């Protein structure tokens, strides 16, 4: 259990931008100076996202087609990222690999977000024995380092992409749950909530109209952090051989396969690795910018 905010009673500020007299160009350049990293990150990540979603359009070849005649070819006009040891086009595999990685990370995020949100709201709002029970469960889950928990779940459910996603999802639930709960606890204590209650407003209304809107900023920041961690963990587990099946394009697995070719065909490991680093970096840039923008005082999550 981590000692959290020092002062629990002050409301969270919401940033406002001046809307009237400053010309657009100047506003944009000011934004750019302040959030250049986040913008770069945002643009890059959007590109990655689009390419992944429309993989069949962008990928020049089928990622699984073998072409043994041109195996281990370096980057060329025909194969921009070269070919791997079975002659498969690396660029196409990187694109489809991005699909595997991003879909998995988003799925895990969605799962942990949804479940963590529900648990956090119930625990924070209802309080009492329900709160205690949920938090104890979360504590138990948090007793495991997240990679370890993911590994345990993968071992018990068996290897494979789906199970890895479930494992990462489960490992991330307690973080969301605790964050949500702490925010709910703060919000719930505020006067207008008590007032609304005394006026007979239904719990559901209070939750949706008062609590939710104020939760979004910190949740967004946490979500970007969790997405980055999810991508990193997913690829790491695939790198170790605990996830996707042999042959499925995935950045982690491609780096693992390319590891023993580093001196003969470095492009096989280099490109998927580079894409992985840049993607995680861009997500972190976005998160950092969000964090700066939304509330410089909000520092109750552990990094």
């Amino acid at each position, binding site marked *: 259990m981590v000692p959290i905010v020092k002062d629990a009673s002050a409301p969270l500020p919401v940033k406002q931008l001046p809307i009237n007299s400053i010309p657009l160009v100047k506003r944009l350049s000011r934004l750019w100076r302040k959030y*250049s990293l986040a913008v770069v990150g945002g643009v890059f990540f959007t590109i990655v996202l689009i390419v992944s979603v429309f993989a069949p359009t962008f990928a020049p070849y089928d990622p699984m087609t073998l072409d*043994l005649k041109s195996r281990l070819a370096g980057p060329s006009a025909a194969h921009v990222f070269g070919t791997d*040891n079975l002659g498969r086009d690396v660029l196409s595999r990187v694109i489809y690999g991005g699909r595997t990685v991003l879909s998995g990370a988003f799925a895990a995020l969605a799962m942990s977000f949804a479940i963590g949100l529900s648990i956090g709201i119930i625990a924070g709002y209802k309080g009492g024995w329900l709160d205690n029970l949920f938090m104890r469960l979360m504590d138990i889950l948090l007793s495991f380092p997240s990679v370890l928990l993911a590994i345990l779940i993968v071992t018990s459910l068996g290897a494979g992409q789906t199970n890895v996603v479930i494992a990462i999802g489960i490992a991330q639930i307690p973080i969301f749950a605790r964050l949500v709960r702490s925010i709910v606890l703060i919000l719930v204590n505020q006067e207008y909530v008590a007032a609304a209650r005394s006026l007979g407003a239904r719990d559901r209304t209070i939750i949706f109209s008062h609590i939710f809107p104020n939760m979004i900023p910190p949740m967004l920041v946490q979500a970007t952090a969790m997405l980055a961690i999810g991508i990193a963990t997913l690829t790491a587990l695939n790198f170790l*051989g605990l996830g996707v099946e*042999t042959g499925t394009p995935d950045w982690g697995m491609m780096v693992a396969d390319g590891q*023993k*070719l580093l001196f003969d065909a*470095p492009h096989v490991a*280099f490109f998927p690795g580079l894409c992985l680093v840049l993607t995680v970096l861009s997500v972190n840039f976005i998160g950092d910018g969000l964090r700066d923008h939304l509330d410089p005082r909000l520092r109750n999550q552990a990094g």
Partner: protein
Amino acid sequence: MRSRVFLVLAALALILSISHVQAHNATFQATAQATAQATPQRGGTLNVAAESMSNSLDIGFWQGFGALHVIDSIGEGLVRANFETGKVLPGLAESWKVSSDGLDYVFNIRKGMVFQDGAPITAQAIVRSMKRSQTPKDPAYIDGMYMYGNQGIDNWQSLDAVDDNTVELKLKKPNATQLLVFTRPDGYIISPKAMDTYGKDVGLHMAMAGPYKIERFVPGQEAVLDANPDYWAGKPYLDKIIIRAYPDEASILAALQAGEVDLTLYAPFDSVPRIQKDSSGGLRIVVGAPLVDLLLGINVTQKPLDNVMVRQAINYAIDRDAIIQAGLAGMGQAPASILAPNDLGFDPAGKTISHYDPTKAKQLLTQAGVTLPIPVTLSFENDRFWPVLAELISNNLNAVGFKVTLDRLDQGSFAGKESAGKTVLALDQRSTFLPDPNDKVLIVDSVLSIGGMSHPEALPTAKQLDALIDSGTTTLDPAARAGIYKQIQAMVLDQMNIVYLAYLTPPIFVRDRVQNVDTQGTAAGRVDFRGIWLKQ
């Protein structure tokens, strides 16, 4: 602005470091190597990288090639083998006589030898060690030392120490391979002192009679060996040998490139062309003889694999050329069948059957009248070239009407599953462990391989094949034996319960200063460290 610059710099650094490696290799000119036979020098430490190290060095049940390298260095049997000529050479026995009917062996043991722990090497010690698996009362007896089964013990009438320096072995039936099986690790002699002192744990404290002795053994990790000054043939050239297990090919490659490893069989084959082209990297490749068969075992008890046409279809569906080029980086030869070019009785005619013909494969499946696609599971070890081979074969089989599920396993689980007969299709290899074909054909012997990978006992020709294999060992005339092994090959091709993929010509990765690495035994994994020396 600065942030962007930094990002570019970081990426540049990464690219530079990787391209530096390539540039480094390309800048130097390939220099011709002086390969003149020089006088061996003494001294130095040889660092060997292995793919594994078992948890015990007990010759009754070791696992993996790492343990094999260690045991081959520290052990010595009655005799030794010359892999090239197939001749039997003196070991602990300086001479021997075999009766004309092949039933009586008398070995004259060298006088004055000692084991690595100081105990004298007597005929009695030798007999005790050789009879270990038959003597439950011996403190070093362990129930389950299956390796000893390779010694032909079931055929022994008696084994006695006639006097301190003479061992006599009487057989029930003649066995043409009896002398050669003594060159297996299970034929090495363990010191009685070690057996008494350590009992069942003697595998952790092996004291034998070979050219090197154990200084330190860390189960599962490494063994550090020192030269044995009391070795009967004289102290070997190297001071020390360190045999270390690495978890995968990538770490062996890294160690090789960093100069930490001097000799290994287990680096990635894809590195071979580069190392062969650029000798300035301090490494060279010694290409081994084709002594390792790569094969696909088919479980004939699984429907519809019990239909020989389906098995033949599998045979014709596989593109061996692609396997050799893409999976083995060219380090292999197109196969015939169960025996390889160096084996007695090898018949190259089999090559016409073991070859790629996907049209014929599809025809056979149609003829067999089976419903397509046929679901099969392909089990393989998750290291070295096996995953790539599995992918290639899976592609081939899927193309003709199979539906392959890949079953990646670690070394231990794979060995277990295979020997328990639970695989459907399995990728494996068989080395010429000793220069005699009998070892290799045992894989299709229905008694000795009962319930194994291909379940040979379920074939209609099982009894016939067993009788042939048996006569292969009981026939003493080499020419007659050759004829028998030719027949065995034909039968295996006919039944196709084992499909042969390639004869591996293993590349041996050697550092420049390492001299005199032989291409025969080493290729089969039986490295003879006695002849190796280091240029100072």
